[in-house]
């Protein structure tokens, strides 16, 4: 289908502010009388605070107030049971940061150390330490599980001697088909354990918040990936009704899953501000961002996979332990299992998983949580199988590649559409796979060349949110976008289908975002690569609502029935006599005069409370299009990607250089080519980090973090990525999205990490490290024939 706007590049309205420095992030905001708060954080990995003596601190000149977990409403924001080094105990406000920090040094903490662990397997071992008081070691966080204690038997641990992951009681499990039969009938079974080490999100903008109160309203500046979806929990944090919350979030300096909702720093700043009656700037340092800025869950897993001689996967038995950090973690384990089920389409599969609480930084969703770890862990094992079966790595992937008949997860939910084989073909062509594969193992001095291909998945569709737009009497189309501005520009690109349907010039459209005072509708969190799918639908239904109203008004004023009218050139006109028409400006004016549903005075019942507030804010300003997305959504919406990597591994230094990279997306219709290119290449940079650099290090003896900050655990830099990267997209429409779009932001990372790990393996005659990141000393030890410095299942290692 030929579109005017969809699939075309555009200049996002916020990009000029970003290049001129005018974009205001939370720390750029000032308010009259503003004071500064600093944190007192836990010096130990687990403890109980018996008392806090802040007498001397509070008596210091310039100190204004303090907020602890004992303050009303702050018990979920600050803690009296710090569970990791860096956990937030209190915040203190003073006239300036130096005064605040000096005062914090005067606070006397009576803190009783409690047992702690940074190792999930240690905690699961009989008699092992527990991360939480009362002997609890699993559940909580966003696992969806009750907090409880789980211990495995010593017998469960017997397989550790063979380097395999032990497993006992599971907290999560599902299965379909006959796994043992599938493995038994296989021509080849691989059985390997692996480690994927977690890493910090390290958003460039720390989760700094500025908050103050004015006339009973709480005003919060805090960067978040989402906007309206974050309002209810933010209101609870701050202790206000939704109607009394002003949330300003025009720019978010990176989130990657760690800012899906507003950080606890917002509630702390808001409650401290109310307590001391002053605006509070709560500037979060890079150290503190490491502590509270979230991290990816480490996975320790084991896969048994059966293959037919032609490479088809018969069955998978997957077990996994997830380091949930101090908060219990996210659902990486299950997401990893679902990813295995869709990427390899086994006829039978069993999944068992357990999250374990550890006294390390809280874990949350990070770009492809679970799906990307498993891609980098299992794709190289697929190459091992291919070697044994005498197959090309591309061919074994294509024989298993998910297509429109694909199914996902334990319930074997069908996909809405999938074209992984097309993506692999496209990537192979762009990369020149056949030619480059001939160079596998070629020497260039001390360097060896290798190639790899990787695939990854993320589920990327939701439904049930609202769209909102207004045609105003000046002829403008106002598109109200309720998602955040996390850097993907999807807050804009997902509104363009509405302009497309209403046949509006983009120049006459105004996108509203950034604060709930701009009357924004209920939207999904801007997470899980779902914005493209989910919010094109809401904009579509709002546009269809407006279109219906335009035709109704025309029929009322010009005669006939609504279906006798069509639109074009910013007019609604009679199909029989196009001269008989109303301009959009005239129709908007008529909508105001008509009132009721036309101007938003009577919004539809089914829309969300947040949307109703937004509609109330713009009611009477024009022709209002507002609707809830109730479009068909049967099945799992897959975001799919593959990547092709060419690397040189230096056998003397252990360094890996990524020479060539091609990323290909299967994300339905392309909405915004430049934005898609950015996501593919940006996710690839993350994949390079996952494969080669990023991990959290913890000292098991003292529970201390070993690599805080960018320098000790730097993300990939300009010099770590190829000078140029290629990308492409399959660009086949998904039948269940009105413009054919699916999401993409997350899986290109897993595909890249997997492709790089596979390429390293290819350069090293098929050796698989079964651990990411692959750091130089691992390569050097392997080349020298020495034992690795890590035990096979060890985590938090350098």
């Amino acid at each position, binding site marked *: 289908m030929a579109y005017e706007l969809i699939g075309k590049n555009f*200049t*996002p309205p916020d*990009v*000029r502010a*970003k*290049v*001129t*420095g*005018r*974009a*205001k*992030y939370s*720390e*750029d905001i*000032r308010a009259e009388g*503003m004071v*500064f708060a600093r944190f007192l954080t836990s010096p130990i990995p687990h403890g109980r605070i018996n008392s806090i003596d802040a007498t001397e601190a509070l008596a*210091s*000149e*310039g100190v*204004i107030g303090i907020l602890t977990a004992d303050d009303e409403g702050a018990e979920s924001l600050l803690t009296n049971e710090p569970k990791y080094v860096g956990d937030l105990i209190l915040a203190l406000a*003073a*006239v*300036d*940061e*130096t*005064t605040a920090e*000096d005062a914090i040094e005067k606070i006397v903490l009576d803190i009783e150390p409690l047992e702690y662990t940074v190792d999930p397997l240690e905690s699961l071992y009989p008699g092992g330490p527990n991360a939480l008081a009362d002997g609890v070691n699993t559940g909580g966080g966003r696992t969806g599980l009750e907090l409880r204690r789980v211990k495995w038997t010593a017998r469960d641990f017997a397989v550790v001697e063979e380097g395999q992951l032990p497993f006992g009681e599971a907290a999560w499990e599902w299965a379909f088909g006959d796994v043992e039969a599938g493995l038994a009938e296989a021509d080849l079974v691989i059985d390997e354990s692996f480690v994927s080490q977690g890493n910090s999100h390290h*958003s*460039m*903008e720390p989760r700094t918040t500025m908050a103050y109160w004015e006339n009973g309203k709480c005003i919060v500046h805090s960067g978040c990936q989402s906007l309206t979806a974050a309002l209810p929990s933010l209101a609870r944090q701050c202790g206000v009704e939704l109607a009394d919350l002003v949330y300003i979030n025009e*720019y978010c*300096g*990176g*989130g*990657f899953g760690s800012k899906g909702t507003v950080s606890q720093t917002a509630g702390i700043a808001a409650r401290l501000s109310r307590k001391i009656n002053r605006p509070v*700037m709560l500037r979060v*340092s*890079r150290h503190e961002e490491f502590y509270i800025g979230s991290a990816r869950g480490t996975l320790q897993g084991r896969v048994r996979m059966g293959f037919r001689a032609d490479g088809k996967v018969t069955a998978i038995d997957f077990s996994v332990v997830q380091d949930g950090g101090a908060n219990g973690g996210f659902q990486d384990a299950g997401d990893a299992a679902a990813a295995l089920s869709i990427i390899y389409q086994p006829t039978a599969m069993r999944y068992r998983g357990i999250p374990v609480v550890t006294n390390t930084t809280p874990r949350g969703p990070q770009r492809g949580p679970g799906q990307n770890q498993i891609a980098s862990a299992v794709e190289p094992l697929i190459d091992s199988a291919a070697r044994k079966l005498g197959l090309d790595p591309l061919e074994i992937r294509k024989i298993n590649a998910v297509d429109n008949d694909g199914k996902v997860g334990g319930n074997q939910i069908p996909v809405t559409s999938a074209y992984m084989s097309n993506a692999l073909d496209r990537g192979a062509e762009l990369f020149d796979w056949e030619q480059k594969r001939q160079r596998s193992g070629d020497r260039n001095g001390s360097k060896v060349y290798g190639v790899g291909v990787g695939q990854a998945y993320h589920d990327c569709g939701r439904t049930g949110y609202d769209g909102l737009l207004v045609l105003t009497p000046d002829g403008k189309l106002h598109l109200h976008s309720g998602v955040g501005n*996390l*850097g*993907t*520009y999807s807050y804009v690109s997902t509104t363009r289908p509405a302009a497309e349907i209403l046949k509006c010039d983009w120049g006459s459209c105004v996108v509203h975002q950034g604060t709930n005072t701009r009357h924004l509708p209920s939207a999904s969190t801007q997470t899980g690569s779902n914005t493209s799918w989910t919010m094109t639908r809401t904009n579509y239904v709002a546009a269809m609502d407006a279109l219906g109203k335009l035709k109704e008004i025309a029929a009322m004023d010009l005669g006939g029935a609504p279906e006798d009218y069509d639109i074009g050139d910013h007019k609604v006109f009679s199909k029989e006599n196009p001269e008989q028409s109303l301009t959009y400006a005239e129709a908007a004016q008529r909508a105001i005069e008509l009132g009721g549903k036309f101007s938003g005075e009577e919004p539809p019942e089914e829309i969300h409370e947040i949307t109703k507030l937004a509609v109330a804010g713009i009611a009477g300003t024009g022709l209002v299009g507002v609707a809830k997305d109730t479009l068909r959504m049967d099945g799992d919406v897959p975001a799919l990607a593959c990547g092709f990597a060419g690397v040189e591994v230096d056998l003397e230094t252990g360094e890996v250089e990524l020479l060539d990279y091609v990323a290909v997306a299967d994300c339905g219709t392309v909405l915004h080519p*430049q934005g898609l*290119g*950015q996501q593919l*290449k*940006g996710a*690839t*940079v*993350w994949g390079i980090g996952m494969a080669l650099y990023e991990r959290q290090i913890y000292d098991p003896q003292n529970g201390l973090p070993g690599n805080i*900050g*960018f320098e000790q655990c*730097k993300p*990939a*830099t*300009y*010099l770590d*990525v190829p*000078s140029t990267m290629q990308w492409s997209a399959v660009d086949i429409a998904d039948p269940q999205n009105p413009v054919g779009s699916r999401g993409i932001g997350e899986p290109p990372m897993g595909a890249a990490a997997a492709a790089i790990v596979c390429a390293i393996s290819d350069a090293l005659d098929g050796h698989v490290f079964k651990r990411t990141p692959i750091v130089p000393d691992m390569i050097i030890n392997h080349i020298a024939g020495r034992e690795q410095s890590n035990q096979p299942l060890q985590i938090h290692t350098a």
Partner: protein
Amino acid sequence: MTDEKSLVSGFDTSAAEPRLDEGGVLGSIGRTGASRRQFIKGVIASGAVVSSAGYVFGGLGGCSMEQPAGGAAAGGVERLISLMVNGETRRVDVLPFETLAMTLRYKLGLTGTKLGCDRAECGACTVLLDGVSTYSCSTLTHTVRNKAIRTVEGLEGPNGELHPVQQAMIDELGPQCGFCTPGQVMSAVGLLETNPNPTRDEVRHALSGNLCRCGAYDHYLNSVMRAARA
């Protein structure tokens, strides 16, 4: 170098000098009630509008209701100095330990310069000092009194026309989240002023001190190469 005293009639700069007297760094002088008057006098005399002064490192009476001893006691007293920022002379009170990033952001209202790490790891705070790209988070303000300071706010032309690097970053959709962008822009401007026709590899190296967690490196490189052609 302009002599501060000649500009600030009646302002006793000696009281604002760091002073190692018998009471230590600060002694009994400190920031007394006199500072508010002195500050206002100084602003009037120099014509400078010092926004948000005193927010971070203690106290200028003009903005803080309280008069803290803490900030000053921690490391000395503020001293009124002249900085050449984006072609203008800016008069500002600066503590001995104050970083240029803090001065720019919290005293001169130039918040385009970002703090990503505050410890010379990320480059979000990059500015040009006499044309050389520098981490302003790790530069003491007192050390740049004789240097021309350029921040991202100083790149646009008199009628708001964008610098070629800025325009190229729009055309190539350089930024994602945008937080590192001002630093990337400043490093690129610094490069192109000394090397107007760099190779792509030279751009990579020149910008390698600027982290981008979104991973927009390829788009930034395309932007700088486009700007070089402009």
